[in-house]
């Protein structure tokens, strides 16, 4: 469904992403892994229009979405989360989720000022759907708490739920379990699997190998901005290049 073909991004003399191509198949969990500085986040930022692509194209279901802004992509069915939390701290948990429904809501200023029926109905309908989503991950009890008062683990999950509220076809998760403890990691990977069961495709950037190997259908390995290897989790673990990149070349010869 997502075709990335030979995209390149250069920062000064450094090629952060170099002629990278890969395809994401519908309904799968496609993971991007690689050592620190491999260009994973840069790649996500390129796909979501945060950075301008120097060359190359990104296609979604045959439509060109290269350099389309993040907010426009949401209307095309792509939503992302961030490596570093981007939660609205002064909004309550349920308000953060309802923010995800924003594109469906009536935001006409005059109607808002006069408390028109459509506004009230929207609020009611999406409050219900938002609560349903929170129920799904067991956060319903926190619904009316201000987000800034909650723990990092809860907010990481909240961010995924907020992205889910935009009803995307493709979700880009940038390190969704970074900094979480094993139990929380387990919960998040279950959440991701539920999401995929709902026919949402997931592009996952992560460092947690255990989780990646467990839930990924397909893995692309990056190193220094280039594609190092590609395939199922099994293919990738046994790939010599990958082992070299992660453990250093000595690891192989020493064996």
């Amino acid at each position, binding site marked *: 469904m997502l075709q990335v073909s030979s995209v390149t991004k250069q920062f000064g003399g450094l090629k952060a992403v170099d002629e990278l191509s890969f395809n994401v198949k519908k309904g799968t969990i496609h993971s991007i892994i690689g050592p620190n500085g491999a260009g994973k986040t840069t790649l996500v930022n390129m796909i979501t229009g945060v950075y301008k692509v120097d060359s190359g194209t990104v296609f979604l279901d045959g439509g060109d979405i290269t350099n389309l802004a*993040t907010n426009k992509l949401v209307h095309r069915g792509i939503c992302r989360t961030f490596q570093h939390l981007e939660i609205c701290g002064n909004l309550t948990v349920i308000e953060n989720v309802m923010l995800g429904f*924003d594109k469906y809501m009536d935001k006409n200023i005059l109607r808002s000022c006069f408390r028109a029926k459509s506004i009230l109905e929207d609020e009611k309908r999406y409050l219900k759907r938002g609560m349903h989503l929170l129920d799904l991950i067991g956060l319903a009890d926190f619904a009316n708490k201000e987000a800034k008062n909650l723990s990092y683990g809860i907010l990481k999950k909240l961010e995924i739920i907020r992205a889910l509220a935009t009803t995307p076809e493709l979700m880009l998760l940038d390190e969704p379990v970074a900094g979480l403890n094993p139990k929380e990691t387990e919960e998040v990977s279950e959440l991701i699997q539920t999401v995929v069961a709902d026919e949402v495709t997931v592009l996952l950037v992560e460092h947690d190998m255990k989780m990646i190997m467990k839930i990924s259908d397909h893995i692309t390995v990056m190193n220094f901005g280039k594609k190092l290897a590609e395939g199922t989790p099994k293919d990738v673990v046994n790939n010599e290049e990958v082992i070299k990149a992660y453990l250093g070349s000595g690891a192989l010869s020493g064996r």
Partner: protein
Amino acid sequence: MLKKYNINAQIIFLTVVLMIIPFFFENDFYYEIAILSMLNALIVIGLNLLMGYAGQVSLGHGAFAGLGAYISVVLSTTYGLNPLLSIFISVTIMALLSFLISKPILKLKGHYLAMATLGIGIIISIVLEVEEEFTGGSDGMSVDSFVVFGYEFSDSTAWYVLCAVLLVFTIWAFENLINSPFGRLLRSIHDSEKAANSVGIDVSYYKSIVFVISVVIATIAGSLYAFFSGFISPQEASFSHSIELVVMVVLGGLGRVYGALFGAVILTVLPQLLTSFEDYETLVFGCIIIAVMIFMPKGIASLFDNILKKKEQNSASS
């Protein structure tokens, strides 16, 4: 989010207070202060939407209010247009102008945005002072009376009623706006533009819209003040007026509609109450503001938040 408490109850309370207050007025001067407070409150409520809710600073709103007022005045007094029509035209011009200005400058953040709005404000006040042909220069110009559908607003009571109605309506509409999806969207921009962007919100468009709304309200209130006082000078568009408005927003409480009301009323009335200090008036005034900001960093409106919170806790524990 739909708030638990009833907005209508607040509006009724406010209306009753506004109806009772005039019984304590001893002369026209009291009316004058009350009207000035309410018109300032209008501008500050609009500015608060921009600063408190959407989180965008403007140090140029005094200038926008002044320019809007000048356009209305020149159209009605110099060219003899109907005052209401002049205000309408002025609002249209200012809305277009502020939309155009907002596109480049709202890309800036924090201090840089403050500097840009400050610069625009200063340019406006210089233009108003230099274009003597239209504006009468630094001496200002007199303004024809405010006649609407054959009715001339001549006595203070009529003005008081007009401003009170406008104020109550604006507060009602803004409370509704803040508690709608639109309001939530604004608050999300304040907290994290990245987050707002990631759920499909066109951040720069909504920032512009809020900027335009605040300028439109400033234009209306500024124009009405010119018609009310029968005189306008570039002082209205000065930097110090812009700062005064920002102080009102912050003192009252950022991100609270009623905070804007408190801030405007207190900062308009306080200097009058302090006149008995004569030479030390400004000193006392400054000390009061400093004290408020130290003890109530979230503004005067936070005082009421604390009372409400205590009430909630009491009712929860009993």
